[in-house]
């Protein structure tokens, strides 16, 4: 599908022209005070706006204001968050006191997919978090803004690596083989990349939690949706904002390893067989060598403004983020321009958004942090032995899986550039009264280049063995989207009706190219002249490329009913087709329906201000993770010897599955929304039950008759359910002092795999996953998955102690008199998934000080501490030992996995604490506002876990595909460490 770009670009010109028009007015002065109607207290920071102009101001600390009113202006608008907005037609008065009533909360506009609703009308599970309630301080990804804020939404990133993504899970798990993260929609752009939005540019984020709401996104709504609305220019005078912070990250909660002294004491206690223990004669704190006090800085400048008929906002963000691991971090520059213009008396509304992002990432080039923990504390960093020139002068030993971490960090490089462009044009036109047509065209282009090089003298990374080892990879993704919607709203007396219909087309293309080489003459060119190595002509290196795409088309419709602001209903349906599916299964239909009633109005209740009961049911889908899975394809395999030379062989690439179809997640939600105490206390309580059928699962299949032992099939059923509670309560609101709290908590009652079988595929009742790994612990799984049982079961032998001779003692579970390394003597010994997640925010205002304390806790999950499995027994002392409270010098047996290394990882931490000071700016001063703040992350962490970060591991980082998703709860050796962050920031408004 091709759109005429000329038609779109004309709108841009119109919109840009609008920026150039600013009007000046003669002025007079209006003063007054804004108070709460119920309490009579002054409202601080209420907005006063001269309608139709750019002029406006806010109230001061006792609710007073002074406003310059341009001549000819007739209307003033008074608004305050949570209160009903008032418009007053101006006479000749010079003072105007206003009383605002609470309750506007229910009239706030909530963004839903392809439209919006008033809060009071919402009957499905939708949560909006606005700018002022976002997490603050050191925030570098939009996901962080929401962390802990929304019940049912888990956002995790174990450790603090700025280059790793957050794992986002909504209401547990709803898929095994497809996308587990909610769909991200940025200003209507479906599947937008979070990299293209800077947290500074976000106005609000709306989470569509249940399928009745997310089913409007059909195929990709099964894991919910997060709708991001970026900031727009507001009518009023031009504002300039500058936000900046510097921050410092330090290591927190090191895995406790032995110091050189402890290591020597341990060695002295060993008998004649030192088990590989050695004293290299030096003292080195390896972690200090490969980590640093990381200093980051972030700058954001934005300019915004507009008139009644148009507005603009331009924003530039620069981030220079250091990781605590030396030589790693991220620098990015992001620019965003949002324009809108109204025409034809407001009947035609045009908007365009443009976002550009460039970034450069320096990745960890190897297992720097792992060996930073494990390297012998008595080894020196550099070697004086002339023979070690072959290692670039670094101290190295010829041991398996043992490399000098400083050498890895300094003699290897892994980095990449990315650039993303996102552009959209939107037009809304009121065709006749109540009927609006909208068109959106959007394009997103992502490019990623990465390069890796390992020096000829680097023992790790393949540099030494291959005389230099490098690779480069390029990939790009191109997405087009065209959306057309029509909305008709009609007021039929007591019944308000709104109908939305639409069509959407999306195309996504992916291409990639990669090249590796080795045998380089010099390290100087690194990966930048990848053809110069001799590995390619010698046949020791090679390259490859690939390309795929998909098309997605959908038609959808939605009906909203509101009867007398008391009874509400929403029904939607989306029929969607995608080229990734098999013939005959291309299209599927996703319905959603929800209804609610305001019980206060229906039954005349008076003990609460509002009590809405709602029920919702919907079905959403999920796409297969890649293209071409339904096809029978032939591709190159190995080479084979034919007539004296090697020729390519071609064979099947996967088992074709022509029946591949949509995964379907059905979600049922029942809940209450309530407001009491003059709308001050408000919140919601809901129960959800989510059931996914036809799971996309890369299933092991019998080799006869299949071609390869795995096929992506639709099989099985998954269920999760839980209770979510969200509360906001202003405990105290006084002139100089206020305190309010908010709480978001989730109690998961079910995370269950109902089955992994259907009529066509019987995948057996059980499977074992998550290999412990090398050295020595392959063929040793930690996770047990079985039909009808909870997900996330950690499985293994039960630790009973250490025998006199230093060997492990495990429980003989089958009672045959001896322990055997087999499933008969193993059982479930932990759960990788949490029971309860909690976010608890405290906002205090004391005079001009703002204090925010945000606590986050997760309870009931266990973690397998991988470092302890391998490096705790006094055996194979190649590596340093983990010296936690579990260390037992009597244990001299080989490493084995058991319940001994499964630890309760429940935690409560002070996720964020911020103290800000608002400087008092004189009215009319050039500077509108100045806010100075200090912020800290992870100031305290309460947990019994002895590893570094007790955060839930929703996925196993050492597996791919469904194996990773089915294996939560494993703290692998490659996880970055927990960090403590201190930030000093300033916000200036002009």
């Amino acid at each position, binding site marked *: 599908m091709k759109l005429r770009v000329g038609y779109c670009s004309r709108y841009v010109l119109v919109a840009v022209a609008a920026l150039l028009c600013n009007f000046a007015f003669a002025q007079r002065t209006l003063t007054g005070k804004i108070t709460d109607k119920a309490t009579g207290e002054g409202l601080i920071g209420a907005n006063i706006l001269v309608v139709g102009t750019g002029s406006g101001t806010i109230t001061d600390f006792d609710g007073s204001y002074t406003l310059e009113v341009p001549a000819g202006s007739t209307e003033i608008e008074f608004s305050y968050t949570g209160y009903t907005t008032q418009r007053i037609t101006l006479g000749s008065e010079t003072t105007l006191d206003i009383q605002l009533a609470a309750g506007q909360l229910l009239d706030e506009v909530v963004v839903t997919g392809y439209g919006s609703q008033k809060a009071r009308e919402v009957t499905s599970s939708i949560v909006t978090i606005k700018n002022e309630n976002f997490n603050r301080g050191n925030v570098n990804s939009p996901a962080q803004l929401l962390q802990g804020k929304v019940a049912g939404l888990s956002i995790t990133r174990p450790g603090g690596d700025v280059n790793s993504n957050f794992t986002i899970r909504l209401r547990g798990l709803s898929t095994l083989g497809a996308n587990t993260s909610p769909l991200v929609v940025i200003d209507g752009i479906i599947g937008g990349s979070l990299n293209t939005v800077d947290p500074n540019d976000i106005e609000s984020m709306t989470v569509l939690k249940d399928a009745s709401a997310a089913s409007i996104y059909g195929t990709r709504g099964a894991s919910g949706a997060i709708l991001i609305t970026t900031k727009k220019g507001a009518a009023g005078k031009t504002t300039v904002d500058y936000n900046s912070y510097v921050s410092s990250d330090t290591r927190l909660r090191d895995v406790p390893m032995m110091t050189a002294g402890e290591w020597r004491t341990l060695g002295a206690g060993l008998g004649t067989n030192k088990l*590989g223990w050695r004293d290299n004669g030096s003292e080195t704190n390896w972690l200090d060598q490969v980590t640093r006090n990381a200093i980051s800085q972030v700058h954001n400048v934005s300019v915004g403004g507009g008139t009644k008929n148009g507005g603009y906002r331009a924003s530039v963000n620069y981030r220079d983020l250091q990781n605590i691991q030396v030589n790693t971090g991220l620098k990015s520059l992001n620019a965003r321009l949002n324009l809108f213009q109204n025409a034809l008396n407001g009947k035609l509304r045009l908007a365009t958004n443009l976002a550009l992002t460039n970034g450069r990432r320096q990745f960890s080039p190897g297992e720097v942090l792992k060996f930073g923990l494990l390297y012998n504390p008595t080894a020196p960093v550099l070697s004086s032995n002339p023979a070690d020139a072959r290692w670039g002068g670094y101290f190295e030993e010829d041991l398996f899986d043992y490399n000098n971490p400083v050498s890895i960090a300094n003699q290897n490089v892994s980095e990449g550039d990315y650039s993303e462009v996102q552009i959209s044009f939107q037009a809304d036109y009121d065709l006749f009264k109540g009927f609006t047509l909208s*068109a959106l065209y959007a394009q997103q282009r992502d490019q990623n280049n990465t390069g890796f090089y390992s020096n000829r003298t680097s023992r790790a990374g393949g540099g030494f063995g291959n005389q230099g080892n490098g690779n480069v990879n390029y990939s790009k993704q191109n997405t087009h989207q065209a959306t057309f919607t029509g909305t008709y709203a009609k007021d039929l007396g007591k019944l308000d009706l709104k109908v939305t219909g639409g069509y959407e087309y999306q195309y996504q293309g992916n291409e990639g190219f990669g090249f590796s080489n080795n045998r380089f003459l010099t390290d100087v060119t690194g990966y930048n002249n990848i053809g110069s190595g001799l590995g390619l002509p010698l046949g020791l290196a090679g390259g490859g490329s690939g390309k795929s795409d998909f098309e997605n088309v959908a038609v959808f419709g939605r009906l909203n009913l509101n009867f007398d602001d008391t009874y509400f209903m929403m029904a939607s349906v989306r029929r969607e087709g995608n*080229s990734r599916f098999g013939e005959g299964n291309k299209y599927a239909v996703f319905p959603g329906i929800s209804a609610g009633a305001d019980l206060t109005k229906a039954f005349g209740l008076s003990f609460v201000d509002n009590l809405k009961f709602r029920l919702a049911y919907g079905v959403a889908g999920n796409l297969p993770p890649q293209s071409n899975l339904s096809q029978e394809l032939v591709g190159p395999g190995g*080479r*084979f010897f034919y007539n004296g030379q090697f020729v390519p062989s071609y*064979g099947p690439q996967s088992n074709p599955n022509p029946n591949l179809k949509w995964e379907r997640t059905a979600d049922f939600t029942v809940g209450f929304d309530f407001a009491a105490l003059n709308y001050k206390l408000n919140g919601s309580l809901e129960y959800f039950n989510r059931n996914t059928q036809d799971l996309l699962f890369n299933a092991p299949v019998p080799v006869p008759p299949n071609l390869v032992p795995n096929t992506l099939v639709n099989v099985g059923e998954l269920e999760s359910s839980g209770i979510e509670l969200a509360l906001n309560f202003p405990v105290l609101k006084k002139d100089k002092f206020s305190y309010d709290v908010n709480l978001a908590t989730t109690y998961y009652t079910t995370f269950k795999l109902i089955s992994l079988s259907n009529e066509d595929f019987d995948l057996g009742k059980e499977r074992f996953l998550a290999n412990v790994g090398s*050295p020595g612990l392959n063929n040793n799984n930690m996770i047990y998955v079985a039909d009808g049982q909870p997900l996330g079961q950690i499985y293994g032998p039960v630790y009973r102690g250490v025998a006199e001779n230093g060997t492990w003692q495990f429980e003989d579970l089958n009672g045959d008199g001896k322990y055997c390394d087999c499933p008969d003597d193993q059982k479930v010994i932990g759960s990788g998934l949490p029971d309860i997640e909690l976010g608890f925010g405290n906002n205090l205002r004391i005079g001009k000080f703002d204090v925010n304390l945000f606590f986050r806790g997760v309870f009931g999950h266990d973690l397998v501490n991988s470092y302890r499995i391998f490096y705790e027994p006094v055996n194979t002392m190649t590596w340093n030992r983990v010296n936690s409270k579990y260390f037992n010098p009597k244990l001299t047996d080989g490493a084995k996995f058991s319940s001994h290394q499964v630890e309760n990882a429940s935690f409560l931490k002070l996720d964020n604490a911020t103290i800000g000071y608002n400087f008092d700016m004189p009215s009319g001063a050039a500077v509108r506002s100045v806010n100075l703040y200090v912020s800290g992350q992870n100031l305290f962490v309460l947990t019994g876990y002895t590893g570094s970060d007790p955060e839930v591991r929703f996925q196993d980082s050492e597996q791919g595909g469904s194996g990773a998703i089915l294996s939560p709860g494993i703290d692998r050796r490659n996880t970055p460490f927990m960090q403590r962050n201190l930030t000093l920031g300033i916000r200036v408004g002009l």
Partner: protein
Amino acid sequence: MKKYMIKALFVGLFVIAFNQSCSDLDENVYSSVKTDDFFKNNDEFIAALGAAYTNLYGFLNHGNYLSTQEVSSDEIMIPQRGGDWFDGGQWLRAHRHEYNPNDDCVTNSWNFLFGGVNTCNRLIFTFEKLIGEGKVDASLARPFIAELKVLRGLWYFWLLDSFGNVPIVDRFDVPADFKPATKTRAEVYAFVEKELNDNVPLLTKDKNLATYARVNYWAGKAIQAKLYLNAGVYTGTPQWDKAIAAADEIINSNNYALEGNYFANFNANNAASKENIFVIPYDQVFAGGFNMPQMTLHYGSQATFNLTDQPWNGYCTLQEFYESYENTDLRKGVSGNQQIRGNFHAGPQFDDDGRTPINDDSADDPGGKPLVFTPEINAHFPNCFRQAGARVGKFEFPLGATPNLNTDFPIFRYSDILLTKAEGLWRKSAGDAAALALVNQIRARAGVAPFTALTSDNFLAERGREMFYEGWRRQDQIRFGAWAKTWAFKPASEKCKEIWPIPRAQINANANLKQNPCY
């Protein structure tokens, strides 16, 4: 006017949009070829045939079929060296014949063997279909089909030998819910015998570059010889005459001869070997997978051969096996001298200069720093010394070797055919002079004194010395009745452990499969 234009524009866009909603959503394929677009010429046809052979490259992967064969015999073990190589106990169990249906090595072997069977089935089906459709010249395709059926016979010979009772899947166009049932070992034997009898005669008798690393008539005869040699084990009825006949046919063709130097068959460049009948043509560039140095050598041995990748310090031979070679046996090698080829690397190890001792930096062995491969092995687990055990040196490790050796791995070798004939004769008549002469021919090349008589013990031992690490030891021990006996780190085992368990995942997936006895 303007207003109407805008209205018209919007309405027009909607019309375009809703027309699109009827898209058939055909999927584009860029980086692969749809099956319908393939088989357009003979080159593509041959490339498809290649898939049947590339399956063989997995033969030598660690944890696959050959590993499982070797570790369960008395010529190889992977001891648990402290924290290394426990791997859930699978290698300890394999050596003790206590296989577990969950063990990866069992599952991998099954998947490897049936993967080979299935590729043959698929190609036979495809080629027959193409002949039927007139898309390929039948005279080109028919010999390929016969070749594929014999190759499938080889895969089934291995299945018969290792798993015994397996389903017979000889076609590709099976229904979606196809769940083949277990057949008895005798039925599988009969299937293999018939397939070979029907198809080997159709294969080319040429022995040249065009048939190198391909299943020709002589490779087919070698499969038959080995099948009949073990017929007594598989069915209870020995077929010594048939084994002798198949071997004789190969011998009398004069296509093959013993190399003067045993190691000519195992050098990096062994394509010219007069002795190798059928090989897997491993290649550093084109056909990877032969990573013997990694599997067997010590971490520090990287410097001995300037290997690109560090070895894993796993596979070693048992002391008794090592010592079953006389010191003058040319096949044994010389302890402490890695410049002289031998089946083993033993004794002190040196840098690539052959003089500078290699340090074992962990120095946890009683011998201390210098790296010395001791033939004696202190323990099977948990703390076998890291330097314990003589290592596999049979295949050439050239300086600068990558994890992909160039050596073509012999599946069938002429000396094995000579020993097969000898065994057939000897089984029929213990005093057979021709049998003794054949065995002594092998011994003469190894530089050791001739036997004066053949016994069960010295015959098995000689086969062991000659065929070390070629994947026959388990089969030989079973045939000679030595399998259940006690040897180092292995207690006496039940006879039913002669065949492996059917993998648990397979039984879970196919209710028609029957687990082998005593698992």
